[in-house]
């Protein structure tokens, strides 16, 4: 007893010092070889070791001091803060929250023009505004919206039906290659091939669905992963058709009611008497993908109210109960796979039209993982949450491309590009640990008795597969 009382007064500090030292020692153990030494090839292509004890010391110090600060100050502080705030936090945000989807949608609709206007004001000329907006519309707008659409598509499989799909990118690839091949070989137009790509992808979804219907949970996950890899490997190796790793280039662009976005006299710019610029096509693509993404969202929302959507959600919650209530689990799973795959196919054909080039490089497992991460980080099943997660994760990594100014701090050898995926991976961990239920964890019930009540995140249970 006496011991305990003696330690009590300065225990937080003493504990922090101890933990800091331990963390430092741990960091030393972890990084001793991998950071302390760097292996480089010399002129005869042999590996030589370079020692980097300074860098190792930085790693160890950061770990030790970080841990010390965390235990000594940050944890007690945040605990005290959460104790005080717990009562007040509940009610503040509802007004903004309720209209958030509408505000977001409005912003998305005017986004390209907003960018042009801001840059116009900033540069002082309309052309400056147009050209400057290219990057923001393309790299941020279109890129994020593609992922929003893919994640909403995958959400049907994972978020609604509760089937863990690790090979979603396969359907994206099917869509992209359908468009690329049919358009280069048969000269079919984008608008014809867009639905066809969706249908092809849906057929592949059913083909994948059939054999794996009996599988549960993680067996399903590994088969979908294997399926994604099989598609990619076939694309690489079936060189007669797919040209292997070289990919297919020169894919036709999409047109607006037959008006091509080319600089010639019949082009879009000339017809409307606008100055020539590549930006119209990008803006057109932006609205196209926005439309496709909204279509995905609309279909998801409508389907959730239909018997099939209810069956999906029932399947997610409890497969056995589902079956005993007479729901045909086979068709339910197959439709989920097919619908999700179809939207993947749409997104794929859009991707091919946007890039003008497809290669197996774009359809690696990492893409599936990123899409799945967006779905889960968004709070499975919540469309708004998924959109936020896509904007944060994809927008964040795109922002990291822009960190040229870091070169001034760390010297010209510093390449921010290298750290992009490292930070992306770490961000996935940090966000997940911080918000295990995703950004929007609570869920609107699709069926209710008298009044719609939000299901708090603590009660949402998912992922039985």
């Amino acid at each position: 007893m006496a011991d305990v009382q003696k330690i009590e007064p300065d225990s937080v500090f003493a504990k922090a010092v101890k933990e800091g030292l331990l963390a430092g020692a741990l960091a030393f153990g972890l990084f001793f070889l991998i950071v302390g030494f760097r292996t480089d090839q010399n002129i005869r292509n042999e590996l030589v070791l370079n020692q980097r004890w300074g860098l190792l010391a930085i790693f160890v110090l950061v770990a030790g001091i970080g841990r010390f600060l965390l235990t000594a100050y940050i944890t007690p502080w945040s605990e005290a803060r959460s104790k005080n705030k717990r009562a007040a936090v509940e009610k503040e945000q509802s007004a903004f929250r309720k209209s958030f989807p509408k505000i977001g949608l409005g912003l998305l609709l005017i986004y390209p023009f907003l960018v042009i206007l801001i840059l116009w004001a900033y540069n002082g000329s309309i052309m400056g505004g147009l050209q400057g907006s290219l990057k923001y519309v393309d790299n941020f707008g279109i890129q994020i919206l593609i992922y929003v659409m893919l994640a909403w598509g995958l959400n049907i499989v994972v978020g609604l039906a509760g089937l863990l799909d690790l090979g979603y990118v396969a359907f994206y690839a099917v869509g992209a290659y359908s468009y690329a091949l049919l358009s280069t070989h048969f000269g079919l137009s984008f608008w014809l091939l867009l639905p066809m790509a969706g249908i092809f992808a849906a057929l592949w979804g059913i083909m994948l669905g059939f054999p794996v219907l009996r599988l549960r949970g993680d067996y399903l996950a590994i088969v979908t992963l294997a399926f994604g890899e099989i598609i990619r490997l076939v694309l690489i190796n079936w060189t007669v058709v797919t040209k292997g790793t070289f990919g297919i280039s020169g894919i036709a662009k999409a047109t607006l009611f037959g008006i091509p976005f080319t600089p010639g006299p019949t082009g879009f710019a000339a017809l409307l008497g606008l100055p020539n610029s590549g930006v119209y096509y990008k803006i057109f693509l932006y609205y196209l993908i926005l439309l496709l993404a909204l279509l995905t969202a609309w279909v998801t929302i409508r389907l959730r109210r239909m018997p099939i959507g209810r069956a999906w959600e029932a399947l997610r919650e409890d497969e056995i109960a589902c079956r005993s209530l007479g729901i045909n689990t086979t068709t339910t799973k197959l439709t989920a796979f097919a619908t999700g795959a179809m939207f993947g196919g749409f997104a794929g054909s859009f991707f091919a039209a946007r890039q003008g080039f497809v290669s197996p490089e774009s359809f690696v497992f990492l893409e599936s993982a990123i899409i799945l991460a967006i779905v889960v980080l968004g709070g499975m099943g919540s469309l708004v949450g998924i959109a936020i997660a896509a904007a944060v994760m994809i927008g964040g990594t795109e922002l990291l491309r822009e960190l040229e100014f870091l070169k001034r701090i760390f010297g010209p050898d510093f390449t921010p590009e290298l750290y992009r995926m490292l930070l992306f991976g770490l961000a996935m961990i940090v966000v997940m640990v911080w918000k295990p239920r995703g950004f929007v964890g609570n869920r609107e019930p699709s069926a209710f008795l008298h009044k719609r009540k939000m299901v708090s995140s603590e009660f949402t249970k998912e992922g039985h597969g």
Partner: protein
Amino acid sequence: MEYFIQQSINGLTLGSIYGLIAIGYTMVYGIIGMINFAHGDVFMLGAFMAMIVFLALTTFIGGVPVVLALLLMMIVAMLLTGLWSWTIERLAYRPLRGSFRLAPLITAIGMSIALSNFVQVTQGPRNKPIPPLVNGGITIYGTNITVAYKQMVIIIVTVILLAAFWYLVNKTTLGRAQRSCEQDRKMAALLGIDVDKTISMTFVMGAMLAAVAGTLYLMFYGVISFTDGFTPGVKAFTAAVLGGIGSLPGAVVGGLLIGLIEALWSAYFSIDYKDVAAFSILAIVLIFLPSGILGRPEVEKV
């Protein structure tokens, strides 16, 4: 026939490596029901550790006997990779225990991305070749079948490790704690087993086997790169599922099978499609045996 036996030997060597990695997947899955996606990258990290130890030995000490060098590489790689795995579990998986099922899967994928890119940043993106450690081989008398010494090393090390591992899981207190956690974590905790510690130890043990697999991989191929975690990782996970995930003998059987399929498919059909063959056989096996070859079918009580 000789060709077949030769290719089977090659397949078994590869399969041993897959089996060693697969044990890590299957044990973690058995105990907390989570796919540890970062395990393939832990394997890659182990191979890097072994590579750096090898270079440190040749740079600072000079001629070390091969057996001693290999042993040192394995031991250091095992210890440090175990430490890494312990830390990963502590930082990325333990806070999410009791959360819903997909949360740790996402952190595992994040950890996998982070680990491979961390190695890329710290060690550079290029392949890391090392000079061959073990040369030569023996020709079986009266035939053209050769067994390289490095293949023998792989098979011998695998057998020794598996024996030690079997002993650890079946005869020691730790192993008993692990098996009990696998059956019922809550009950095990009530009976006084430190569940968190047991889970940590499971991660460490899996990583140690992966580190040995990494060392053997480095010795066999003589080269390692930061992307080398993914494909062996996915193959090993395939092996674990093929054998029946959660079952330790299943992981080894699955690993050997995947290795054999790959080697024989490359020998008789097309080397380009060897991975396609392995994955397709996985899908076909799972259609007829939905819980793998040695896995017990899951009975769900309502």
